[in-house]
């Protein structure tokens, strides 16, 4: 097939494809006229031959033909159709021809093709895997019916920030918010399910009826509860989660109407919610009506409810917030002690669900993008190297009449084909990568588990591959076709420029090194953070401690004294388990995010003098500190005398002691805590060392510990120190608790070590991934450096030969080559260091114990890159010293 070439210069405006038409038609419209005229004239001639008069002959011919102009019009439109077809065929032929040629070229150079495809597959695959995670977590709409109109509403707090909503304020909002078609609210609760197998602790949402209107996904079976059931005194109903229904109830289709015993009370199952509700780590196992009591509706200071609004169709979020803020202003005025500043904080629900993990996801996405750039840089370098090898081929084709655009198109087809192969292999890499990613991912990232290689992700991979092929193919293609014909033909395959310095290939490698440095600095900062975090003393000894949660249902343990006695008996029973060295109880053990924070004041202060600080409220047995091996710094811990009727006492932690009393001895001083309206003064009897109770990366919270008898919680954690392996201890603990009361559920059994590790799972995940990406980038950059130095040696073979002939030592030659590699790497490192200063700011919220411009990290990473550059240059340097001067000179 002849290669189509460019249109001659005298027809600048004619589309290319017209050329094909010109093979047989000068002008399609004239052709139509000629053809029809021929027909009519032939008919007339025949009629004349049959003996008709000229008039009759013409008239009959026209009659027989029909409406000439209508036919002409119809033919014109068919001709246009024809032109479209011709154009399509022509393009298809060109592309098919280019593709065939590209396939032949790539097949002829299997090493080049293999290296390029593997490099691209790594880059595209890593990007696709991370993108599938980013898409699933950040971009995919929430599963609800009107996901785009859902807003989480919070109350602006005095002194900044935002808080959950009080039941009283929620009640007012609901009556005065026409801009929302539903305003759902919930708080977290828990229930013990008894009567079906072993007692089970269930995580619950106490949700208003409007919760289902706002966050609607059709139920699997049955229905959700409505307003009539969301009232105090209404019959108890419960909605089951899909997970609970399929496990505990074995997907029983007749579960609706069944009566369950929750906390000793009867609840009727009304429906099963679909699995789609379980996309967050805090998804509940059951839903029960919130059923706010009149007292709760009058509460305007306790910020407990999470409120989700469904915007009325067509209402803009800022408008809705402005209107609700007017209501909130009145509430702030009416209830000045409610802690609210009269503003409303409204966030699209998706942002509030995934907002916390967004920085981490974006950092990973950015990092993997850098890896792709480095990979593409390497491929572009390969293409440039081939461009210089193919100068002769290109010159010949050019001399045979192929235009430059044609040659560029041909070369671009090759690079796009290469990228497409890389993309296909990349999707396979992505499938493996995603599988591994999900295997090691922490549980705390919402919706990550649903990440798959679905249509949007594959589209992303296709676009990335195409972009790689075009962007990184254009320059080499232009470069390969920009040549002086005669010179290229004369020189054969040797490139005329002999210096590595300043060429595009050099710039590429410098760029790769700087990108790799940015990646590694980021990874290095996170590694330093992880090390710093590992060295943080937690304030307790997690090794050899088992934790298990027990809750006493109010129906069976209705009074404080019943709860106190109940827990005492449980602790005694567990204490008798062989191997249990000490058994303590605490209302909340490290490491936990939530908790009851309220103001604490020392004696001699007034409520308004600003001396109050927020502190966490905890209840614990006297041996809790000993069991956790948290040192008692002053005074005493709780004893058997600290019963409910005795004088109220507390133990505080070191941070709080320092904040309230400075360096003075707090023992014997009195404080009031969580009792703003009617202060109850409690004597400080002891000070304990700080525990990192909210997480190792968080400063120790202020803590006030109460004796269990004076502040019994219905749910407590058993803290058991034992040298026995936890796996063998856990069943014994369960049996001991069941021995006290067989209806009690033991949940959340875990070792303290596990709990600490879990709290660091997400940062460790990010760090691991970033380190992997950094090393990938480093390896790719090393390949780039090796490639360019090897090229340098091959180009300078002649010069090296001369030098050696003139007496240069092997060492001198070797150093000359090494210097080249280090100069490149040095330039890349310098640029990379400057770039890192700007980019590491994105890590500000993820580093711990190091600054984002940590000089140690910068210096170590820079040194590492220079070392790798030197290593990558060693092989070509060695090869340079092995050159035979005679051979090199003759070859030149």
């Amino acid at each position: 097939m002849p290669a189509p070439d460019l249109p001659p210069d005298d027809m600048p405006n004619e589309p290319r494809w017209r050329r094909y038409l010109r093979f047989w038609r000068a002008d399609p419209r004239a052709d139509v006229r000629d053809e029809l005229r021929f027909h009519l004239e032939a008919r007339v001639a025949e009629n004349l031959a049959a003996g008709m008069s000229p008039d009759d002959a013409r008239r009959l011919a026209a009659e027989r033909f029909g409406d000439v102009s209508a036919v002409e019009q119809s033919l014109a439109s068919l001709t246009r159709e024809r032109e479209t077809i011709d154009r399509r065929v022509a393009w298809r032929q060109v592309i098919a021809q280019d593709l065939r040629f590209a396939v032949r070229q790539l097949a002829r150079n299997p090493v080049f093709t293999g290296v390029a495809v593997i490099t691209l597959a790594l880059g595209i695959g890593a990007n696709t895997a991370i993108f599938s995670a980013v898409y699933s977590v950040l971009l995919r709409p929430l599963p609800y019916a009107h996901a785009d109109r859902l807003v989480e509403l919070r109350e602006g707090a005095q002194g900044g920030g935002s808080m959950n909503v009080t039941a009283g304020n929620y009640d007012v909002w609901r009556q005065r918010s026409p801009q929302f078609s539903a305003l759902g609210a919930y708080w977290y609760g828990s229930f013990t399910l008894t009567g079906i197998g072993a007692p089970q602790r269930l995580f619950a949402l106490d949700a208003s009826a409007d919760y289902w209107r706002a966050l609607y996904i059709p139920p699997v079976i049955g229905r959700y509860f409505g307003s009539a059931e969301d009232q105090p005194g209404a019959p108890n109903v419960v909605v089951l989660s899909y997970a609970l229904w399929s496990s505990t109830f074995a997907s029983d289709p007749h579960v609706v109407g069944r009566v369950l015993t929750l906390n000793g009370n009867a609840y009727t199952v009304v429906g099963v919610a679909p699995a789609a509700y379980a996309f967050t780590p805090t998804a509940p196992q059951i839903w029960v009506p919130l059923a706010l009591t009149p007292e709760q509706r009058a509460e305007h200071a306790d910020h407990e409810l999470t409120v989700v609004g469904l915007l009325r169709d067509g209402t803009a979020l800022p408008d809705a917030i402005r209107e609700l803020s007017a209501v909130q202003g009145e509430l702030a005025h009416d209830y000045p002690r409610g802690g609210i500043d009269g503003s409303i904080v409204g966030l699209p629900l998706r942002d509030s669900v995934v907002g916390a993990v967004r920085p981490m996801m974006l950092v990973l996405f950015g990092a993997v993008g850098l890896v792709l750039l480095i990979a593409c840089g390497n491929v572009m370098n390969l293409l440039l190297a081939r461009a210089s090898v193919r100068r002769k081929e290109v010159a010949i084709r050019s001399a045979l009449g192929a235009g430059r655009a044609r040659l560029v198109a041909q070369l671009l087809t090759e690079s796009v084909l290469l990228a497409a192969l890389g993309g296909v292999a990349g999707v396979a890499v992505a499938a493996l990568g995603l599988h591994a990613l999900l295997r090691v991912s922490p549980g705390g990232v919402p919706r990550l588990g649903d990440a798959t290689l679905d249509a949007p992700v594959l589209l992303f991979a296709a676009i990335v591959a195409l972009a790689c092929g075009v962007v990184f193919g254009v320059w080499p293609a232009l470069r390969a076709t920009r040549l002086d014909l005669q010179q290229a033909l004369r020189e054969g395959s040797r490139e005329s420029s002999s210096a590595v310095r300043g060429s595009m290939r050099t710039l590429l490698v410098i760029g790769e090194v700087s990108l790799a440095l940015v990646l590694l600095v980021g990874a290095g900062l996170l590694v330093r953070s992880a090390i710093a975090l590992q060295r943080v003393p937690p304030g307790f000894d997690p090794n050899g401690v088992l934790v298990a949660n027990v809750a006493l249902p109010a129906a069976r343990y209705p009074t404080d004294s019943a709860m106190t006695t109940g827990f005492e008996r449980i602790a005694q029973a567990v204490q008798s388990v062989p191997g249990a060295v000490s058994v303590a109880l605490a209302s909340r053990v490290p490491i936990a995010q939530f908790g009851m924070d309220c103001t604490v004041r020392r004696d001699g202060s007034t409520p308004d003098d600003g001396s109050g600080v927020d502190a966490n409220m905890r209840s614990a047995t006297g041996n809790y500190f000993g069991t956790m091996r948290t040192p008692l710094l002053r005074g005493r811990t709780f004893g058997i005398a600290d019963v409910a009727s005795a004088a109220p006492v507390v133990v505080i932690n070191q941070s709080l002691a320092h904040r309230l009393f400075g360096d003075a001895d707090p023992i014997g001083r009195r404080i009031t805590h969580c009792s703003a309206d009617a202060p109850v003064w409690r004597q400080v009897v002891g000070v304990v060392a700080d525990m990192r109770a909210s997480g190792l990366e968080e400063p120790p919270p202020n803590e006030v510990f109460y004796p269990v008898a004076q502040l019994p919680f219905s749910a407590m954690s058993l803290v058991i120190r034992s040298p026995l392996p936890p796996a063998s201890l856990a069943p014994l603990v369960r049996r001991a608790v069941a021995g006290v009361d067989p209806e009690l559920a033991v949940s959340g059994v875990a070792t303290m070590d596990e709990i600490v590790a879990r709290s660091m799972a997400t940062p460790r995940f990010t760090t691991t991934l970033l380190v992997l990406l950094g090393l990938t980038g480093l390896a790719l950059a090393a390949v780039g450096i090796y490639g360019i130095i090897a090229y340098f040696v091959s180009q300078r073979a002649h010069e090296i030969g001369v030098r050696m002939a003139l007496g240069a030592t092997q060492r001198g030659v070797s150093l000359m080559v090494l210097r080249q590699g280090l100069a490149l790497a040095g330039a890349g490192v310098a640029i990379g260091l400057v770039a890192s200063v700007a980019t590491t700011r994105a890590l500000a919220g993820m580093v711990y114990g190091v600054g984002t411009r940590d000089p140690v990290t910068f210096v170590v990473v820079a040194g590492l890159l220079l070392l790798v550059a030197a290593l990558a240059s060693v092989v070509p340097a060695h090869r340079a010293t092995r050159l035979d001067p005679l051979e090199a000179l003759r070859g030149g």
Partner: protein
Amino acid sequence: MAGTGTSVALLQGTLDVIVLKTLSWGPMHGFGIARWIQQTTDDVLRVEEGSLYPALYRMENRGWVRAQWRITDNNRRAKYYSLTAAGRRQLAAQTGTWSTFSLAMARILSATRQPA
């Protein structure tokens, strides 16, 4: 359609198969095709000659026929149409369909028994 009482109106799609059959004898220009139809059917099928051309163009777009300008015996320039391989396949398929159809029609119209 212009014509006398003995002519028959063409069924939809019939023209295509007639043209394909005509071209199966060899390349022909539009007027040649019209004349061949006229002679073969003794002018019973009176094709409005103008409608031949859109049919030819359509078949060219579909790849059934190929067009080429040539010089006639009388030394005039005329556009000749010839069958492509696809056109030949199309003719074979259409021929089968038409034979079945006309056989069925003949049976119906010559039937002597009334339906049960």
